[in-house]
């Protein structure tokens, strides 16, 4: 197996190193660092959660060539927040659906807002 194309393509043209592809990736990364700084979890717990997530994604067929890294990252963050009882299982996916629904109901170009039922 020759991995050269995968290694060298997809690599940002980066004298200065990689930055985030998308804003949500930056937020997922920074949220994790922020929660770690606040003592919500240790970095060892975090890397364990991330490797678990990557392994399970590979097991379900993700070729895992690096472009799905932040998907794994965000899923791991969801999992660790459930483990730490900051959120309940299912709550994140319900809210994710609610945000997507809110987006569909928001005219293009206007800020998307989520109105929570009280």
């Amino acid at each position, binding site marked *: *197996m*020759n*991995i*050269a194309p995968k*290694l060298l393509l*997809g*690599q940002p043209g*980066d*004298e*200065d*190193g*990689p*930055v*985030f592809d*998308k*804003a*949500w990736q*930056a*937020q*997922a*990364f*920074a*949220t994790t660092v*922020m929660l770690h700084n606040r003592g919500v979890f240790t*970095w*060892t717990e975090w*890397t364990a959660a*991330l*490797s678990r997530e990557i392994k399970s994604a590979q097991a379900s067929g993700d*070729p*895992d*060539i*690096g*472009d799905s*890294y*932040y*998907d794994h990252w*965000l899923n791991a963050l*969801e999992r660790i*927040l459930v483990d730490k009882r*900051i*959120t309940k299982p299912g709550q*994140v*996916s319900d*809210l*994710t*659906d*609610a*945000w*997507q629904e809110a*987006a*569909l*109901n*928001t*005219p*293009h*170009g*206007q800020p*998307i807002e*989520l109105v929570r039922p009280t």
Partner: protein
Amino acid sequence: MDDDHDHGSELSPMEAKVRALETILTEKGYFDRKALDEIVETYETKIGPRNGAKVVALAWSDEAYRERLLTDASEAIAELGFTGRQGEHMVAVENTEQVHNLVVCTLCSCYPLPTLGLPPVWYKSAPYRSRAVMDPRGVLGDFGLKLPDNIEIRVWDSTAEMRYLVIPRRPAGTDGWDAERLAELVTRDSMIGTGLAKTPAQLGTPS
């Protein structure tokens, strides 16, 4: 609402999930927009492989610093103000005439953030993570690096507790250069081990 798609906005599943987490964390009092923006800005602009390059260049030009770096890399790197918020232990591994070092994280993608910033896409890829251990010479070949057969390749597998920084060999023709000038020769890949430092003739070319 009508079914005219042009009138709605769209969030990808991952964009929506980030917002969902933000909603939850805000309600629980864990979310701090200002702290978050500072972290992003720091990683986008201040922390990057230039930090590691300064460490390597100083080791090249200051023998006492080189010894401190090889003895206790965490301490020596902290001297320059680059400290890990993850608290991991840093180890510097030096390339020599006989040995070339290569860093990988087979488990996930542990990476020395304070010295190198965020990892490149290929570092996080499964092919790199698995092949760096099984076939390091082949991987180096993919990066265009052909090493003589008599050079031993040592592969270092990072963990959550232990991160590695490769000290590449100082290029010839740089006698008398100061650390600032030397730092320009140190590429990110040379500190992971998938490349060599630039020669003076290569300065100004992409790494």
